[in-house]
């Protein structure tokens, strides 16, 4: 048996022993997702057992180095683990902006001290992070952001407002874009890390059209951010005034995550399930579902190719933008079709049969997919400019 084959066999055995049956069911709602953090609560024992087993094995972040809380898997092993988890429908043991966004940025730009501290905290689910990028006047045109940090020697005094900050009211720490040089648009932003429990930080939840409130307005009112948290642990990633590079790098990972390239629900075909639910399908709906399934299964292959190439540095650096564009547009289409197949039952906003209006709330939530993390139009702009090299883009 080759090394990879025996790794697959071991992995299968380990998952069999450690992934409880409840954790192999599809994620139905927020409560099924474990985000970690200071105030985290497990929904049930199975969720706790699964998280702890993975944490101890380094499988919350399998491809991160062992010294930072990962399992040090190489790309081929990582792919096998993903495949084997998908095979049994295993849920992610831990979800977090730390894993998807800050972690990759720290692995690339962080100091050794930052990696030791923050990456381990993320891998162990100890600290939950939120993302302070968007402001009321700065969405797609992010670099125009105004939140300002006044230099006070060993610390900054930060004032300003962020908006659409997902889970700001539940997060422990924030990675935040703060202007530290008003004269310099691109080279005047610092990528800061600070505690949301600090004096002067407040949040106000915003209700979405889905009726849920997963994001907030975030206010900074004379927040004191020290420049360092100890030896080799600066409070900023990369260099002061060079945070834009970090911000963009992180966006690549955010877009990769939102794209759903990793597989699972976001790349699955749906026609057969729709037929099971609906009984008979209208012929034109059936045809639409078939077209959708062709696109979804093709996109699944693209996701696999993209991740394989990414891991060995063969992917075009702007490719996450393409993945995000296609993946989110596809997900919106998926939910349109699910609503159509669901009929009037899917309209119910609160019934028990729909577990509190899942179909319609999820459908509405997907509309944000092509906005959050950069809109589809912005993705197309980036593809035009960086991949197709079109003039004036």
């Amino acid at each position, binding site marked *: 048996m080759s090394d990879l084959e025996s790794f697959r066999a071991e992995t299968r055995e380990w998952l069999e022993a450690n992934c409880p049956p409840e954790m192999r069911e599809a994620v139905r709602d927020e409560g099924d997702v474990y985000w970690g953090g200071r105030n985290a609560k497990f929904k049930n024992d199975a969720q706790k057992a699964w998280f702890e087993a993975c944490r101890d094995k380094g499988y919350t972040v399998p491809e991160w180095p062992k010294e930072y809380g990962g399992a040090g898997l190489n*790309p*081929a092993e990582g*792919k096998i683990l993903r495949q084997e988890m998908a095979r049994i429908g295993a849920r992610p043991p831990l979800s977090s902006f730390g894993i998807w966004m800050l972690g990759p940025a720290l692995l690339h730009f962080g100091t050794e001290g930052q990696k030791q501290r923050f990456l381990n905290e993320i891998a162990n689910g100890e600290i939950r992070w939120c993302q302070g990028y968007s402001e009321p006047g700065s969405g797609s045109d992010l670099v125009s952001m105004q939140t300002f940090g006044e230099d006070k020697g060993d610390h900054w005094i930060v004032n300003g407002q962020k908006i659409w900050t997902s889970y700001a009211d539940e997060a422990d720490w924030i990675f935040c874009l703060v202007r530290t040089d008003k004269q310099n648009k691109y080279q005047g932003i610092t990528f800061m890390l600070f505690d949301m429990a600090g004096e002067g930080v407040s949040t106000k939840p915003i209700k979405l059209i889905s009726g849920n409130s997963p994001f907030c307005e975030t206010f900074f009112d004379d927040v004191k951010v020290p420049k360092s948290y100890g030896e080799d642990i600066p409070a900023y990633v990369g260099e002061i005034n060079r945070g834009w590079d970090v911000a963009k790098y992180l966006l690549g990972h955010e877009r990769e995550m939102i794209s759903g390239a990793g597989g699972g629900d976001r790349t699955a*075909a749906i*026609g*057969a399930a*729709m*037929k099971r639910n609906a009984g008979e*399908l209208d012929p034109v709906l*059936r*045809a639409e*579902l*078939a*077209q959708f*399934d*062709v*696109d979804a*299964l*093709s*996109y699944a*292959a*693209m996701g*696999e*190719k*993209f991740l*394989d*190439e990414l891991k*060995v540095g*063969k992917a075009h650096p702007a490719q996450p933008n*393409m993945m995000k*564009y*296609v993946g989110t547009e596809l997900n919106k289409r998926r939910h349109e079709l699910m609503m159509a197949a669901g009929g009037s039952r899917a309209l119910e906003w609160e019934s028990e049969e729909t577990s509190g209006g899942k179909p319609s709330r999820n459908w509405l939530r997907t509309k944000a997919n092509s906005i959050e993390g950069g809109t589809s*139009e912005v*993705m*197309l*702009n980036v*593809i*035009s400019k960086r*991949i*197709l*090299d*079109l*003039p*004036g*883009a």
Partner: protein
Amino acid sequence: MPLYYDEDQAMLAESAQQFMAEEGAIAKQLRHWRDRDCKDGFGHGLWKQFAEMGFTGMLVDEDDGGLGMGHVEAGIVLEQIGRNLTPSPFLSSSVLAATALKHGSDDVRGRWLPGLIEGEKVYSVAIDEGAKHRPETIACKAEKSGNGFRLSGKKDFVVYGASSEMIVVAARTSGSDSDADGITLFAVPQDASGMSHDSVRLVDSSMASHVTFDGVELDGDAVIGEVDGGREVLNAMLMAGRVGAAAEGVGVAQGAMDMTVDYLKQRKQFGKLIGEFQALQHRAAHLYSEVEIARAVTIKAAQLLDGGSEKADLMASVAKAKVAKAAGLAVKEGVQMHGGIGMTDEYDIGLYMKRDRALQEFLGDQYYHAGRVAEMSGY
């Protein structure tokens, strides 16, 4: 296995790209033969060169003198064929017929494979019976006659049929027209008496025959595989051919897109390069996405086919349908974004549109394959 080319495949891709761009170029092949009204529709000289490159027998087992490569490799060659619109019997001969011949006896393989590998002979396949691809139904009959069979019926869309030294024919040896079983494949030589071709030029300048079999007497050794057991061989051929056609389609899409994106960077209107207009940028960026995805799913289907996966059949249909969508978009956007010049015969973009149209139909269009995906998925 990662979903990208390994080192050998990357090398093959490079040499195929270079070779096809030089030898298979539009001016040198497609326009050359078309403008001379060539009855073959392709160049035999180039076919010889394909043999020298090792392409003709790439799918043939090494024991039979081939290279024993897989569908990923065949796809690499086909993508370059598509990109250059190179008229070539490669898909019919080296993919479809070669896949059928793999199932043949020692005699059958010994009779037909060497000529293919050497680039001396060209083969085609006769599957369709009607204007649409419906291989589930086969009415063309082969009845027992002495030690052999008597073949009668009609076949359509036999690409390069009239130029072929041999045609692989799917015929019914038992059961009724729409039965899955009772199919047998025959290697019918060019000089078989009672076979006649009505050879017509298609929109893309390729040649295809309506073939009539009027009591064609065949020896028992014309049978490829098992009598009545041909469905399995036919399915293997169809999978290989669909994945191959998808790969060629990816090349067509890429070629059309490259031309168009280049044009957006050259053409000025309103004092600007038209590539500066966001209305065109977004459409080009969308097209890019579709072409990338079409390539990914095509390589995936080829890998599954090479690995003998149960999913290969489903993914071959997914790939064929997806490529049809992407390539269809590429050629339509291509002509549109070229404006008036895109409508001229002198300009190559229209040739991509024509080739795409023919390739869409070959071995099933996007509607057929999307329907198949639904059926195989259980709805």
